[in-house]
């Protein structure tokens, strides 16, 4: 009898756990199957394994390039895979197969993972560049672990670190006179979309679909000034031509589809950053409780979409640039923004005491204004992938820091972690090693001449 009970318990436990595991695999909590913690760049989408894995046949190499190829091309990748396809590199590839992303970026290995999700030892440059000191006497005695850590080189993106780039900017001032961030080319980018301005009483929402509050917010917005009516975003226009976005059936919450028609670049870029990558992958939207950075607990269950930062009807870009960020982010760097020199200038600009473009908001640095040429709406636009300028941090120098600061201060400030935590209150404690080395080299060349 006792045996029968044990057998029954064993069978029930086995059946129960099998059902639980099978249910999890077929759409439940798949994190149960993760072989180890996912990196900070991928944990948002870790419950949809098939984004990177082919069911039953392992990792898809094109899963990496599917999301990252465009940004690597834009970064003028210093080590693209095609560089290593030449058979003369065969011996090197036996040591490190640089043709494959996963050689250096192995997922689910938290114990091995360093900055930028790299799972190679910090001195991996040695594999191919072991004789660098012979070529460049300035590098004699330097440890290979410092190539990237010292802020001199990156494996992929060296746009702000190349010698010619730095050399031309050695004499730049710490702060440029009348420093101004680039202004968005709204007139140029939205030419052809603008219609006659609209105001209160001209809204075309169907009866009962709008509220006093939403109409008031819309009437004061840039959308109303540009002639964008309710049905342009929500659909349901009885007069719109077939195929026009406004001709879709009315929906109370149009989501990204309502924005995409005019702001396609912004929606696409949003889906490439940590804020929007879940939704772009077909998962439910990102929320602060899933983040690994410190967040405001009151914001835990907010869902991230266009309207979480821009509002549903007023589309106030000033609020989106600071208050929206600080409503969720509560890490040291974010908390130190209020009262920082950048914030002071932001307040001076908002109050009209300083000129347009003189202020620095959260978005100024994390969603820089970049000149777009790869689009049917070319011109200066706000980059809505807020992670693009952080991969690696030196990427920020050109679009973010240089409009206001010299390259020397920019590199030194970004390399100073404590200064970043204080949101740039004070000065960098060390000089930028790349600049120092270049100055020594140029001085030696001058002496030799």
């Amino acid at each position: 009898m006792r045996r029968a009970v044990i057998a029954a318990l064993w069978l029930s436990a086995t059946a129960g756990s099998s059902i639980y595991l099978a249910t999890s695999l077929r759409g439940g909590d798949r994190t149960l199957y993760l072989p180890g913690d996912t990196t900070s760049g991928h944990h948002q989408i870790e419950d949809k394994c098939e984004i990177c894995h082919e069911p039953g046949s392992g990792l898809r190499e094109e899963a990496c390039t599917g999301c990252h190829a465009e940004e690597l091309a834009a970064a003028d990748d210093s080590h693209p895979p095609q560089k290593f396809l030449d058979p003369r590199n065969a011996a090197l590839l036996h040591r490190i197969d640089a043709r494959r992303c996963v050689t250096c970026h192995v997922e689910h290995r938290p114990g091995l993972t360093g900055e930028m999700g790299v799972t190679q030892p910090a001195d991996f440059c040695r594999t191919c560049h072991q004789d660098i000191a012979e070529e460049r006497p300035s590098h004699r005695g330097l440890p290979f672990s410092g190539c990237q850590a010292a802020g001199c080189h990156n494996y992929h993106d060296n746009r702000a670190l190349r010698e010619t780039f730095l050399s031309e900017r050695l004499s730049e001032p710490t702060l440029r006179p009348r420093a101004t961030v680039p202004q968005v080319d709204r007139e140029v980018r939205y030419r052809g979309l603008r219609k006659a301005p609209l105001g209160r009483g001209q809204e075309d929402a169907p009866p009962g679909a709008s509220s006093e509050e939403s109409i008031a917010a819309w009437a004061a917005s840039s959308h109303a000034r540009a002639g964008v009516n309710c049905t342009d975003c929500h659909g349901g226009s009885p007069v719109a031509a077939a195929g026009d976005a406004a001709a879709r059936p009315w929906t109370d919450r149009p989501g990204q589809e309502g924005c995409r028609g005019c702001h396609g670049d912004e929606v696409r870029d949003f889906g490439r950053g940590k804020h929007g990558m879940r939704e772009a992958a077909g998962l439910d939207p990102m929320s602060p409780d899933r983040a690994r950075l410190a967040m405001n607990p009151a914001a835990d269950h907010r869902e991230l979409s266009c309207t979480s930062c821009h509002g549903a009807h007023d589309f106030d870009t000033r609020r989106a640039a600071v208050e929206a960020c600080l409503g969720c982010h509560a890490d040291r760097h974010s908390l130190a923004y209020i009262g920082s020199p950048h914030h002071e200038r932001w307040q001076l600009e908002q109050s009209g005491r300083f000129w347009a473009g003189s202020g620095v908001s959260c978005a100024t640095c994390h969603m820089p204004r970049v000149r777009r040429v790869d689009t049917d709406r070319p011109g200066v636009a706000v980059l809505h992938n807020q992670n693009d300028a952080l991969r690696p941090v030196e990427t920020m120098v050109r679009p973010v820091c240089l409009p206001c600061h010299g390259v020397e201060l920019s590199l030194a400030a970004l390399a100073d972690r404590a200064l970043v935590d204080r949101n740039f209150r004070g000065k960098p404690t060390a000089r930028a090693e790349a600049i120092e080395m270049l100055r020594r080299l140029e001085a030696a060349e001058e002496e030799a001449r």
Partner: protein
Amino acid sequence: MTRRSWWAAALLALACAGLAGCNRSEAAPREGELAWARRTADMVQAALAADRAVYAEDILQRLTMVQKIQVVDPESGEARPLEGREDWKSEHGKLPLPAQVLRMGAERVLMSESGLSYVLLSPWPINKQNRARTAEETRGLDRVVGSRKPHYGTEVLDGKTYFVAIYPDVAVSEACVTCHNQHRDSPRRDFKVDDVMGGLVIRFPL
């Protein structure tokens, strides 16, 4: 023949076939195959040399030195001369250098998996990754620099036999010489027009 003998004969045949298969990639190429390879490499070199000259003379030199085109920088609004620069991809209004165009083409050819590869190498490379790496490259570069004539050979890389042709890379214009003589990373700074600066290596499997 006994059953045991049949088994022994079958095993021997299998072993011979296996050995033949293993040695196939390292088998010495026939003279006819080498003659075909030489002709093929010569044709590839002619096409590459022509394309390179067209870019260097009819595009880069024409736009930058003859027409002296100015490009307006969108950030500062200043007009700046159009020029060839190593970091052309991350700068506005710049063009790639002829050697970079050749390398970009080589990378695209590699991605096509046609088997053909080509690269510019030199005993005095600006980028040290472009010095001879294999024994055949070292031997060939020495010869073309000295003789100014093509060098042909074969080599085995990763178990595969390749035909290798190396052609002298001659400084055809003052621009080539000036750039190499002034570049910070150039190990040789006394090049003159018509000097052999290195070699174009063309390689494909036999």
